[in-house]
């Protein structure tokens, strides 16, 4: 019997590590006063593919229900939670979730996530809280080889507004920016007759790095209020992270959003040894516009699979075997309570030497 491409069994140490990551996440977010939320695994495709969300339909795992509606396995937590939160009490601001999402991409079909959503909060407070929670959680897992990248959707949006792009043109330009394909960015913008903007966008594809990038652009955009505000915000977050601890922070001013609902700061955590992304998120106020809500929303999701791969294997408890007989099985069962720190197994046969760390033999005891 085979598994479909992209599916896999989880066993042993990998599962232990995943459980540890999830357990630590729960501890950290509950300590920070988040409340748990879970949405169903099966939802309507429309929830994720409508123009406000804009997920790629071809990557969803989908089927028709009896009424001919298209249902999907949950491809994204943030969208599902936004739908669910519209029915929740307004006083709760901070939420956390843990579970799988299902999409057909290079990571396979199922990936396990743990994440936070912060709504109706002051914008800067929410963004700082998201990033600080990421730092707190990674530190709890003893992970220190990581780099946090900051970006902002507003830069591309502001610079391309004068181009009056139609949907197709915008898609092509956004995709070329996403790929840092300078020659195509230049050509597409030049075709719209804006050489200066073409040059600005090409320069932006290379505007990634440390604090000097923000300093340079602060000077460059000192007379452009909207862009200067964005650089100021990124600088605040950058400095806050540096002040919090010895954290490697970087910015990419040429980064563009990949989903229509992102609308402001974007963050991403890279594991510096493997290059894998261990968390990503950002601001997505626009997501709530579909419910006619004008609220602040920000959050991020950790990739539990990636974190489980790099944490130290969890030390397993000592293995103890109580050898019993049908007559002494109840005594053996009661004896478990005396060894709360051990993994206690009960057998009727004496096991091989070395199979357990300790063996207690009750097999020949006589019970009253």
């Amino acid at each position, binding site marked *: 019997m085979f598994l479909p491409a992209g599916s896999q069994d989880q066993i042993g140490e990998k599962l232990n590590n995943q459980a540890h990551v999830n357990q630590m996440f729960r501890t950290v977010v509950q300590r920070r006063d988040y409340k748990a939320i879970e949405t169903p695994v099966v939802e309507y495709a429309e929830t994720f593919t409508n123009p406000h969300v804009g997920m790629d339909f071809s990557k969803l795992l989908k089927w028709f229900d009896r009424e001919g509606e298209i249902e999907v396995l949950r491809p994204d937590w943030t969208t599902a939670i936004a739908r669910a939160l519209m029915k929740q009490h307004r006083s709760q601001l901070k939420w956390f979730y843990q579970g799988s999402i299902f999409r057909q991409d290079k990571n396979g079909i199922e990936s396990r996530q743990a994440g936070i959503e912060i709504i109706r909060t002051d914008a800067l407070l929410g963004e700082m809280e998201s990033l600080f929670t990421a730092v707190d959680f990674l530190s709890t897992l003893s992970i220190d080889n990581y780099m946090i990248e900051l970006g902002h959707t507003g830069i591309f949006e502001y610079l391309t507004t004068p181009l009056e792009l139609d949907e197709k043109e915008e898609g092509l330009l956004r995709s070329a920016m996403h790929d840092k*394909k*300078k020659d195509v960015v230049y050509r597409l913008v030049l075709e719209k007759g804006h050489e200066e903007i073409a040059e600005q966008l090409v320069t932006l594809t290379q505007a*990634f790095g440390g604090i000097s990038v923000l300093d340079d652009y602060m000077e460059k955009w000192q007379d452009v209020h909207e862009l200067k505000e964005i650089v100021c915000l990124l600088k605040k977050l950058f400095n806050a992270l540096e002040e919090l601890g010895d954290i490697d922070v970087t910015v990419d001013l040429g980064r563009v959003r990949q989903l229509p609902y992102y609308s402001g700061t974007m963050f991403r955590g890279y594991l510096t040894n493997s290059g894998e992304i261990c968390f990503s998120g950002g601001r997505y106020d626009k997501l709530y516009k579909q419910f006619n809500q004008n609220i602040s929303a920000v959050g991020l999701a950790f990739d539990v699979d990636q974190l489980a791969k790099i944490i130290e294997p969890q030390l397993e408890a000592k293995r103890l075997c109580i050898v019993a007989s049908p007559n002494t099985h109840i005594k053996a069962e009661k004896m478990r309570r005396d060894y709360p720190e051990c993994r206690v197994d009960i057998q009727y046969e004496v096991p091989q030497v070395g199979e357990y760390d300790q063996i207690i033999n009750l097999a020949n005891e006589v019970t009253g």
Partner: protein
Amino acid sequence: MKPVIALTKGRLEKQFLSFFASLGYDIDPLTEKGRKLRVETDEFAFIFAKGPDVTTYVQYGIADLGIVGGDILAEIQPDVYDLLPLPFGQCRMAVATEKGKSWSNQKKYIASKYTAITKAFFKDKGESVEIIKLEGSVELAPILGLADAIVDIVETGTTLKENGLVIDEEFMEFSARLIANRSSLKIKRKQLNPIIEKLQQKENE
């Protein structure tokens, strides 16, 4: 750890090496590699692979940078940074058929190694075609009656001519390109920026 560069074996490899030498890099270990698929110079580690595999090695972070044809990138669309065109490996994509071929009104059969590009091209034209995937020597397909036409890259047009084919339509132009792994470009930026800038300066000259 040295930056890893994945090179497309064959024609592009030779063109890249002479381009690389013109930038002042020592290419002796690369020209004297024999059949080795992994070679180190003082500054870089190189791996040699087929074009589509170069994109895979870069996408998965085994290689930090890659040199690959724009035709392969257009066909596969890997999740990598597609940084810049390089001044070699120029070619164009074309529809070609037998000289004097008269098109019937039936649905056409098109043979190609580039099925995604072919599909997008005919979809854009609003024409339904059947695409037959071939791995190479696609010029044979119309001659042997497997297909009505082919979609393939053309450099000089000699192969087409020698096999009795003519270009019906040209629709895309390519060159070799420099690609980068999305994480490497950020994490190893201090190591990678100098070589990227050097390749770019030469391109702009």
